[in-house]
């Protein structure tokens, strides 16, 4: 503690010497900071991922069930050319895009209201209300939607007087449920981004005669774009890999996650599963690359 007091004379300890050394050697400081996290991420994650990708070029001997570590392009070729994989990929990407768009459209007004309109007290209450559903377990919520969307469910009961009908189980149900599940994850970053936009900036725009809409579009939107993108990464990627929701409310549909899951769990064909897993990996990298060119990733 004493060292914090300016008047107390710094003591010559090894800690102090180390500290002095570090303050004059920023590179060492950087190395120390990065060592642990990089070790973790590279060893645990990148190596695991790389090994998975390598597996895609191997094959399973269907007679013995043992993985043959001989290079083959069979799995990749099957995944790229098989009509099944094309259909399912298109369906999955379509669902993930729809979920992302819906979530952003819903999250923007709510985050804006929270950050810029609500009183601090109200803000606190709203934040709790947004976060609360996160604790009610993914599966419980998915089954709740199954109940809501059923032909006998609340939605039908609400819509019937107006001549509407529940979409029943299928892709629309999957999109609705996934949007619901990931909404808090999209609201939070956008809300945080909006909070960082100084009110004074908006007031200045107003003072200079800027109308509400142009102010939002020209000043607020560019400022929170990185936050929106952060949110879309959540909703897009979480939807892209999901296989449980589509099982519960998706009717007969299957998504990429189901194909991967079945090949690992039931068929014991890790090489093919890895090859299928390449599809979402390529898609996500493509997305991150696009986002990066807008410069948004640096701000994430």
């Amino acid at each position, binding site marked *: 503690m004493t*060292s914090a007091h300016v008047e107390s004379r710094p003591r010559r300890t090894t*800690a102090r010497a180390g500290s002095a050394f570090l303050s004059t050697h920023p590179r060492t400081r950087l190395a120390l900071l990065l060592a642990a996290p990089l070790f973790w991420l590279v060893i645990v994650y990148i190596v695991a991922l790389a090994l998975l990708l390598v597996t895609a070029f191997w094959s399973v001997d269907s007679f013995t069930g043992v993985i043959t570590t001989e290079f083959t392009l069979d799995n990749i070729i099957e995944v790229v050319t098989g009509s099944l994989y094309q259909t399912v990929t298109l369906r999955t990407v379509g669902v993930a895009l729809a979920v992302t768009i819906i979530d952003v459209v819903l999250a923007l*007004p709510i985050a804006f209201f929270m950050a810029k309109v609500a009183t601090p007290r109200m803000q606190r209450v709203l934040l709790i209300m947004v976060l609360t559903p996160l*604790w009610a377990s993914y599966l419980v919520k998915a089954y709740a939607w199954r*109940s809501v969307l059923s032909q006998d469910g609340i939605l039908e009961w609400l819509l019937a007087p107006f001549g509407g009908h529940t979409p029943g189980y299928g892709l629309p149900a999957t999109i609705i449920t996934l949007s619901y599940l990931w909404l808090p994850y999209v609201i939070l970053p956008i809300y945080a981004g909006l909070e960082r936009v100084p009110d004074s900036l908006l007031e200045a725009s107003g003072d200079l005669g800027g109308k509400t809409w142009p102010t939002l579009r020209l000043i607020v939107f560019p400022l929170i774009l990185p936050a929106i993108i952060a949110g879309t990464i959540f909703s897009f990627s979480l939807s892209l890999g999901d296989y449980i929701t589509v099982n519960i409310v998706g009717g007969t549909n299957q998504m990429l996650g189901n194909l991967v899951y079945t090949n690992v769990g039931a068929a014991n064909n890790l090489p093919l599963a890895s090859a299928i897993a390449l599809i979402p990996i390529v898609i996500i990298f493509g997305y991150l690359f696009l986002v990066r060119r807008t410069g948004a990733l640096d701000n994430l």
Partner: protein
Amino acid sequence: MRLSRPARVTLGVITAIILVIVYVPLLVVLVNSFSTSTALTWPPPGFTLEWWGKAFQSAGALEAVLTSVQVAVISTIIALVLGTLISIALQRFEFFGRDAISLLVILPIALPGIITGIALNNFFRTIMGVPLSIWTVVIAHATFCIVTVFNNVIARLRRQGTNLEEASADLGAGIWTTFRLVTFPQLRSALLAGGLLAFALSFDEIIVTTFTAGSGVTTLPIFILNNMFRPNQAPIVSVIAVVLVLVSIIPIYIAQRLGKGEEVKR
């Protein structure tokens, strides 16, 4: 900002409608926890308190909650440490490969859970020869939780600048002292927010968990999944969900209060 009154009202109404929609399924869960139907059919044929009584006697449920809390707490702590280190490095230093590192941090959450899941499963079991256990779950969870801490901390670091740290250094404080007394207090609410999100993410994660949990490790989502396949357990699961929602409000509220206390009012 001076939004016109109609604009404020419209926003308020939209917010209210969205929140109502958000709470309808939760209401269904609440009602189901009192339903006499074991299949959670709607509308409930009758009401009973039986499930509430049973849920509180279920040792399996309690154990699963404890396991989940344990996993979430440890992963969150690891994520807090690693996430903070990496954000300080990225925000306070210019160096080659910064972009690659920020990409590396985002990757575990950006890639779908099933890929992270099978990659780690393959890595642990066939490459490392480590049997799956509660620790493999912790390692997996910590990996994808780093990003939530990273996001919050780096944003705070960027906003607060380096003036205070430089002042502290000028006054003779060492690096550690500066971190402890200057940087860290300013980061506290960011750490809280990131940690809370990390905790929530880990607590409810099921896909990666499925692939990395040892067979004796039953986290709450796995317990719930198993019980969806047991007779007469579905309403008990609803009870657990309701209790979790109610209990979760307390820490979030406290976190909020603490967080807000530090910030300058707008």
